[in-house]
C-alpha cells in the first residue's frame, strides 16, 4: 500500500501440535505499517474441535500436571537426540503455547521464530489452583539464525487464558551460548494477556 506499508492476505490450515491432526483453517490479513509499529491483524478461524472437546483436553492436561506429587523440573527438552521424556511432555506443551506468545510479540515483517529447545523448566507450587512454571527457552530466529534465550514465567488454569511474562536476552553475543549477561537492555518483564492462541 503506497506510502503506508505492506498488507498480506493469508489463508492457512492448522494442525494439532501433538498429533498432527488437522485442527481447522484460518483467513487473516496482516498489515505492516512502514513505521516500525506492531502489525494490525484480523483473523478468523474455523475449528475442527468444539468447545467441549477443547475444555476436556485442557482439563486432562491440567489434571496430569496437578497429579504429580513433586514440582516438575527438567532441562534440555527435547534432548540432543530429539527425545522428550513422557513425564515432561505436559511442561513442554505449555512451553510451546507460552513461547508462541513471545514469538507473536517479537516477530516482525523480517524476523520470524521457532521454538528450538526448552533449556530448563521449574514448577512453582501455588496455594491456589493455578499452575505456574518458570522456563528458559531458546528461540531460533530467522533469517539471522541466531538462538535467542528467553526467560518465561507462565501461569494457567483451564478456562482462563494463558498468562505469560517474558524477558529475552538482547543480542550481546559476547560469549557463546547466548548467555546474554545483562547487556544493558532496559526491557522489563512485559505482561502478555494470552488470547486463545
Amino acid at each position, binding site marked *: 500500500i503506497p506510502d503506508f506499508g505492506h498488507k498480506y492476505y493469508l489463508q492457512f490450515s492448522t494442525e494439532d501440535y501433538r498429533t498432527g491432526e488437522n485442527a481447522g483453517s484460518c483467513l487473516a490479513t496482516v498489515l505492516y505499517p512502514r513505521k516500525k509499529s506492531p502489525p494490525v491483524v484480523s483473523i478468523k478461524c474455523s475449528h475442527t474441535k468444539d468447545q467441549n472437546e477443547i475444555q476436556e483436553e485442557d482439563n486432562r492436561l491440567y489434571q496430569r500436571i496437578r497429579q504429580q506429587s513433586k514440582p516438575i523440573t527438567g532441562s534440555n527438552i527435547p*534432548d540432543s537426540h530429539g527425545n522428550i521424556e513422557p513425564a515432561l511432555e505436559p511442561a513442554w506443551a505449555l512451553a510451546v503455547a507460552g513461547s508462541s506468545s513471545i514469538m507473536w510479540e517479537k516477530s516482525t515483517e523480517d524476523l520470524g521464530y521457532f521454538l528450538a529447545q526448552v533449556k530448563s523448566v521449574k514448577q512453582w507450587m501455588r496455594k491456589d489452583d493455578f499452575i505456574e512454571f518458570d522456563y528458559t527457552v531458546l528461540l531460533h530466529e*530467522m533469517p*539471522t539464525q541466531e538462538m535467542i534465550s528467553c526467560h518465561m514465567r507462565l501461569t494457567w488454569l483451564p478456562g482462563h487464558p494463558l498468562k505469560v511474562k517474558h524477558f529475552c536476552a538482547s543480542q550481546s553475543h559476547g560469549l*557463546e551460548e547466548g548467555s546474554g549477561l545483562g547487556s544493558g537492555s532496559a526491557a522489563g518483564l512485559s505482561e502478555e494477556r494470552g488470547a486463545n492462541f
Partner: protein
Amino acid sequence: HQVLRVVPTSHEELQRLQELQGLEHLELDFWLAPHDLGSPVDIRVPFPSLQPIKAHLEASGVSYSIMIEDVQELLDEEQREMIRSSRRLPLSTNTFNYEAYHTLDEIYAFMDMLVAENPNLVSKLEIGRSTENRPLYVLKFSTGGSKRPAVWIDTGIHSREWVTQASGVWFAKKIVEDHANNEGVASILDTMDIFLEIVTNPDGFAYTHSTNRLWRKTRSKHSGSICVGVDPNRNWDAGFGGSGASGNPCMETYRGPYPNSEPEVKSIVDFVKAHGNIKAFVSIHSYSQLLLYPYGYTTTPAPDQQELHELSAKAVAALSSLYGTKYKYGSIITTIYKASGGTIDWTYNQGIKYSFTFELRDTGRYGFLLPAKQIVPTAEETWLALKVIMEHARDNMY
C-alpha cells in the same frame, strides 16, 4: 546386602511383615511391599540387619528365600556391562545403528569399515584439515575410469543440523548396497563417480556433542573478537561481502574475514577446482523441507533457472512419494531469504549447473532436535530426490 523374598500365607504372617515396615532402625527397603496373601514380599536387608531379620523370621516360622545373595556384586556386574557395551563398537556396517545419532569418532570409524568392506568401490580421501586440525574426509565411490564426471554431496556443513550427517552415513551405505545388488545408483556408477563428505564441519560437530548442541559455525578464532566461528555457508566467493551475511564475528551468519578463510570451505574449493569434472553439487542442510537452487546473493535469475526449477519439481515429487513429506522449491533468494557467500552460488558460478541445496525435515516442530527415529525415513525420501538429480545429470551431460 541381600534381598529376601517372603510369600505370606496367613494373615498373621502378612501382619508381621507389615509391622517390619515400621521398624525404621532396621533400614529395610521393601522392593515389593506386603499387601495381600500369596503376593511376594521382597525386602532388601542391609548387612547389619540380616542376622536379626532372619532370626526373627525363623523364630516366627515364616519361611523366606534369598533372592539376591549380594546386591553389591550385581551392581558391580551391571557397571562392568555398561562400560563394555558403550565401548562395543559395531563390527561392521551391517551392525551399525543407522537409527541413532553418532559421535564424530563413530562416524569416522564407520567410514573406515565401509572402505574395508568394499575396497573396490569405496576409498577415503583427506581433502584438508579443520581449524582444530581434524581431518576432513571425503568418501569416493567409483567403479573405475579416470576423473569420470562426478556428483558431490556434502552433509553437516552446519554442525547442529544432525539429521544431515546421519543421513550422509545412510547414503554411504545405500550406495554400497545398490552397487552390490545392481540396482538404484548402480547404473549411475557405471559412468560417474560419487563424492560424499559426511562431516563437513567436524570441529563444529564435536562441539555440538561436547558443549553446545545448537552450534552452527566453524570454530575458528579471529583477532579482535572473543567470538568464535564463521558461517561456512557464507564464506564462499560468491557475492561475498554483500548483504545476506554478517560482518560481526559474534553472529551466526558471520561471513568470515575473507572468502575461503575457513579450511573447511577452502578444502572443498581446492578439490572442486582440481577435479574439474563435477557435474552436480548438492549441499545438505536442515531444517525447513526445501529444495533450493541458485542464487541466494542476487535476485538475478540463474541462466538455467527453468531447467533447475523443473528438475526440482521432479526431485520433490519423488521425495514426497515415499512418506508424503511436503517440500517447497525454488531459488534461494525467492524461497528462503537473501544469503551471500553461499556454497551453491559459488559452485554454480564455477560451471556446475546442477547445484542444489536441501533443507531436510522438519518444518520447525523439532527443528534441529529431530528425533532419531526420523533419521532413516528422512534419508530414504531424500535419497529418492538425489537419485532424480543424479540421473538427470548423467542423462544431460554437458
